[in-house]
């Protein structure tokens, strides 16, 4: 990588690291894994930097890489840890933190592919067709994974009535 490209890449990392870390946190439901994932993803973006067709696409490229790495990592080495619905003790009540932790805990109970679909569909605003292409599955599979993921959030009392609303949307 040329020095000028290196500066641009460093600027990209400084500007987007927080956003990418949040994205990875949703994909993994674990801060430590998310940091590892982002570093791995950014290393790949670094290696591809000179060949990216448009530098502006770097974040989309990195996010796509994060999704793939998250799914591959689950298959390779993260099986030793089992998500638990039991929340750790915290010093005092904080409604915002409670909600955030509840959502994280609900996400942690999902299989990585369902979690990835929820993040891609509702956090990244990608279409079902895009997600299907990215995950190499059919749009029907994307729909069913999204429905199961939403059902899990509803079971955690986080999404009262949303699935009914979603059904109406699809029927329209």
């Amino acid at each position, binding site marked *: *990588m040329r020095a000028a490209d290196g500066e641009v890449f460093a600027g990209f990392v400084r500007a987007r690291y927080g956003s990418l870390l949040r994205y990875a*946190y949703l994909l993994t439901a674990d801060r430590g894994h998310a940091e590892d994932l982002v*570093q791995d993803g950014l290393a790949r973006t670094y290696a591809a930097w000179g060949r990216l067709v448009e530098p502006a696409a770097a974040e989309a*490229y990195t996010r796509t890489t994060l999704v793939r790495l998250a799914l591959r990592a689950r298959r390779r080495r993260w099986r030793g840890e089992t998500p638990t619905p039991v929340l750790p003790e915290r010093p005092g009540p904080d409604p915002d933190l409670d909600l955030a932790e509840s959502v994280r805990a609900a996400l942690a109970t999902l299989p990585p592919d369902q979690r990835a679909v929820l993040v891609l569909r509702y956090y990244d605003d990608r279409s079902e067709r895009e997600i299907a292409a990215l995950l190499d599955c059919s749009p029907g599979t994307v729909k069913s994974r999204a429905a199961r993921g*939403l059902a899990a959030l509803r079971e955690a009392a986080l999404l009262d009535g949303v699935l009914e609303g979603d059904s109406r949307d699809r029927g329209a």
Partner: protein
Amino acid sequence: MTEVRELLESAAGAVPEDTDVPLAAVLAAGRRRVRRRRLAVAGTGAATAAALLLAGLPLDRAPGGGPGPVDAVRAARGGGSGPVGTGDTTCGDVRFDKAELPGRRVTADNGDWPTAQAADLLALHGWPRAVPYDAARWTVVVNGNAGVLVASLPGAKPRYLSIHRGPNNSWIAGVPCTPH
């Protein structure tokens, strides 16, 4: 679905905005990855060069005007300098004979084939692995100044990319496509 997005944003908000950026670690990891990939490509290139030399095919255009990679591929097919096959199939704006698929094997460094750039494009269009050019099997079908680059990985459908000849006998990646 606004509610779902808000829930996800609330969870993501557990990661503070002012998180320290481990720039040095990221750059070091990136450099390591580049070094590893260069080594892998060099190994693959050496193996391919040996195979091509054994087959009697030139790797690149000789200073005295020998055949380049494209001509080598044509020569290997036994064809002349005209278009490939009957052109019964199209990929983007490139016509070729479907019977030529999957084409001749190429690697990133046995010519100016845009496999690395193609891998990035394909990654953005649904290729199931990130930056797979050093893992995929790359083949090419050439038709004059255009052609089709084919990437294959075990267990996945082949991906196709139209290519066009650029300056200095280089090749420029075109659009991903499905031959029909």
